[in-house]
């Protein structure tokens, strides 16, 4: 996935002011940055939820900027929003079925795969998703995204609001999904943990990329560590 010079925002001002980034096949790429840096808007722009005002977004060489969110989903790019990322009033199973809307013929097969990733969801498949615990809700959200057999996942703060133990679990799941050959682009507050499992990292501030490095390099970068990883120099 190649993102070049995207600009986007709400209302009159721009929030994302020309961001370039790239996600290689099968890679995990993490974007970190302070609050208000435009991380979330950036990922929404890639997902087609917020329209890009300029710049290009290409997946496997094909341009997807300007497409609506549902068209982006059809192209195998599955976005998981940070909040309100499940259908609360539907059962777990119905949620997953909705995930397979664009790929109905593979629904049964994908459902087995997702249950394989998250056995607990199979147990609770007839429960209302809104009544599940926070961790299980995230599993539903992620599972729904996986139903389309995506080539890339876009995750907006997948660990937000989870207990430390669950955060650990979440990252493990993401790693497993990634090992199955899905590229991951995520935005994270838990920067250190996220970078540890990533191939590449970006630091976003003021709507622009401040640093772009291999994840391990970024982790040891003193300035980044001080400013964005909460490590005292």
């Amino acid at each position: 996935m190649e993102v070049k010079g995207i600009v986007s925002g709400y209302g009159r001002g721009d929030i994302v002011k020309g961001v370039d980034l790239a996600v290689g096949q099968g890679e995990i790429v993490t974007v970190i940055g302070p609050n208000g840096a435009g991380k979330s808007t950036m990922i929404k722009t890639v997902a087609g939820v917020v329209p890009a005002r300029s710049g290009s977004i290409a997946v496997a060489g094909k341009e997807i900027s300007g497409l609506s969110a549902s068209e982006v989903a059809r192209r195998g790019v599955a976005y998981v929003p940070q909040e309100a990322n499940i259908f609360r009033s539907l059962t777990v199973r119905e949620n997953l079925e909705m995930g397979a809307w664009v790929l109905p013929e593979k629904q049964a097969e994908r459902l087995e795969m997702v249950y394989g990733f998250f056995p607990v969801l199979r147990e609770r498949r007839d429960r209302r998703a809104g009544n599940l615990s926070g961790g299980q809700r995230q599993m539903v959200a992620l599972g729904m995204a996986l139903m389309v057999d995506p080539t890339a996942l876009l995750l907006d703060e997948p660990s937000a609001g989870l207990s430390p133990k669950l955060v650990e679990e979440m990252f493990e799941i993401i790693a497993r999904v990634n090992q199955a050959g899905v590229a991951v682009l995520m935005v994270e507050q838990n920067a250190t943990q996220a970078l540890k499992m990533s191939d590449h990292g970006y630091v976003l501030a003021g709507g622009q990329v401040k640093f772009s490095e291999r994840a391990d390099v970024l982790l040891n970068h003193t300035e980044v560590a001080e400013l964005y990883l909460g490590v005292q120099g």
Partner: protein
Amino acid sequence: MLQVLFNGLVTGAILAPGAIGFTLMFGILRFPNFAIGAYITIGAFAILFFDQVAGWHIALAMLGGIAVTALVVWLTDLVVFRPMRQFPPISLLVVSIALSLILENVIRFIAGNDVRGFDIPLTRPVKLSGLMFTSEQLYLIALAVAAMFAMHAILKFTKLGKAMRATADNFTLAEVRGIDTDKVIAATWLIGGALAGLAGFLAGLDLVIEPLIGWHLTIPVFAAAILGGIGSPYGAMAGAVLVGLAEEMTALWFDPAYKVGVGFVIIAVLLLFRPQGLFGQPEIKK
């Protein structure tokens, strides 16, 4: 007392299809569509047309009328609401009021103000251990219950129905997941329109058909939908029966002159103290 409950049930049965239709549309389109009353009127007149002008059997006329109403309602979306999808709810509310003025007067233009009724003879009641009812009232309840079950089946067991629930639950996520929201919206209008058509039939059976028949049902229908928890079809059904009961009781034990205010009072009290409705889940602040 049993009789009062039954009467409330009959009124509820008349309100229920309209309330479900209203709440379905609200769930997905996120504005209170005031034209629901005009849709009901269209239903009553379309059925009347097939019944009296075309001379069809009443059951056939009902189905034909329901189909016509569904189509007209869907057309109002294509022509009026669709280009304004992103407008704030209050603008759409005003638009829907204007639309209901238009539809009501198109009917008046064609059919005039006269009172009319379906070609069904009135029947005397049957008395059964203190309960009094007529065969039409049983049909009426049966039709409303059938519509309820049909709605339940659609929402629960069909892919489109589930997608409707999903879209009502979380529109953005539905788009993100690639659900064809245009198709879902079209289905919502068609189904909502069909329910309004049925409501037109039920109201026409019970009341008198004239250009304002649906307008008179608008506020009770709103009240039923809000009472049941807006966006929740099952709640709307229960809400309809409760509004029916509340109206009956006000007229019996308070002052009939204030009956038409009951719907409003229910709405106000409920919205203030339990905005999610009696049966709804609290809405998460986004």
